[in-house]
């Protein structure tokens, strides 16, 4: 099993705060600066509060697997060596947002929908990928 190493774009204001946070070991998602509602993925404006700005709120480092797939083909132009296991994580205490990520750890073949997972970052030279592992 591997973890794709495909550096994210770092020059886009709409998305880069996510990667600045992961470099610090944090997990932050964009939210309305007035009411705190998460907006994932970010779009230019907030329907709840038109006057709001985008505030990157720290979120839980734990969650539940919503769905998963063991990817056995390479689709990225470079940086991936299948197989690897993708999971979609419903983060604890975050409504209306799921995190796309990669499952790490020797026990990953036992993943199932509903499995509990926790943050276990993978550090590359260019970026830190907020990968997750199965919780004990």
């Amino acid at each position: 099993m591997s973890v794709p190493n495909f550096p994210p774009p770092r020059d886009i204001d709409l998305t880069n705060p996510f990667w600045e946070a992961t470099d610090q070991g944090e997990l932050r998602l964009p939210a309305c600066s007035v009411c705190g509602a998460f907006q994932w993925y970010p779009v230019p404006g907030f329907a709840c509060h038109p006057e709001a700005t985008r505030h990157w709120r720290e979120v839980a480092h734990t969650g539940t697997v919503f769905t998963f797939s063991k990817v056995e083909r390479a689709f990225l132009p470079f940086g991936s060596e299948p197989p690897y296991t993708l999971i979609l994580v419903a983060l604890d205490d975050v409504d209306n947002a799921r995190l796309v990520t990669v499952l790490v750890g020797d026990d990953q073949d036992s993943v199932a929908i509903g499995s509990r997972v926790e943050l276990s970052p993978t550090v590359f030279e260019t970026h830190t990928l907020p990968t997750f592992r199965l919780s004990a």
Partner: protein
Amino acid sequence: MASVAIVGVGESEWGRSVDRPLDELILDACRLAIADAGLQGHDIDGFVPCTPHPAADELAASLGAKRSFTVKPGLEAGAGTVGAALLAEMMIEKGLAKNVLVYFGYKGSKPGGPYSYHAEDPVKAAFEMPFGWYGQPVYFAMWAQRYCHDYNVDPATFADIALSARAWAQLTPGAQKAKPLTRDGYFEAPMVATPMRTLDCCLISDGGAAYVISSVEQARDLAKAPVLVGGVGVGSTEMTMGSIFSQNRPDPLRFGALESSAMAYAKAGISAKDVDFAQIYDCFSISMVLQLEEMGFAERGAGAAFCSLDRIGPGGSFPINTNGGHLCYSYLPGMNHVVEAVRQVRGERGDAQVSRKSVCAIGGLGGNDHATLVLTEDR
């Protein structure tokens, strides 16, 4: 009552890789569609391009059309090519055009393939690609996994969809994947992303396709029996194109097909029970299943089991994707389904002809967009 009909259809040569410019392939398809209708280039006075190139003015000049009035769908992929019929209908009903040419072409063999389109979306490039969540098979595999979990479906059930597509393709000249396939053969096919195998995924194709829509009155004077546009519907969800494959919705396995089919059936004055056969956008086996449930052909969660070879395959009681679809015939999103539906309703399909051919429903998916088109015999 239908006001317009599809009067001509055309497909260029196609295949895994065709070494000719895309514009040429599209022009071939347009000429064939116009000739199929018994019309000439100068009869075309409205255009619905479902592709950026060629622009309608250049195509019009190539065909000898005298004007190039154009309406473009904002819908994507299969939703665009199927939903284009709605724009053509509006153009004709409003008196803006008499004979509208809908055209599309695609080079799946281009560098980066069908995946590269998604790399252009900033949120997908930032929040999905770095994790290797990339390539349409990956998105749909995750949905298939969730579907099997929620409805207690054995992924082996999907085999029949591949077997049916292959059986239809064997009866269809030019189909890209027409070698015999056994059930064991399906399970021997490599896994792409669990639970989906290569044979659950659509082809890659180069080619062009087109259709012509005219008023019903005019259609009755043309070369072939008109195929009436009973109704067209469009739908979408509250998600964006970037987030549709991963994010939260009240019901994450829902497309806009519930909305689009209800609209199309209401316009046609039918219900799902009145549909004789269907062409449903099969970029993947799971996407066809999810749409056919929303289109009312099976209960939620029962769609995979509904798609048994003896029901949807040749000779079955509810034929689906009767040329082999995008899995085995060609992948010109949605267009192959429209062309096939027209040929079936006309009774032109020889060994693959369905016995009950009065009403066909076509489902076209494009990310967050969906279109349903109901075609009927002129009775």
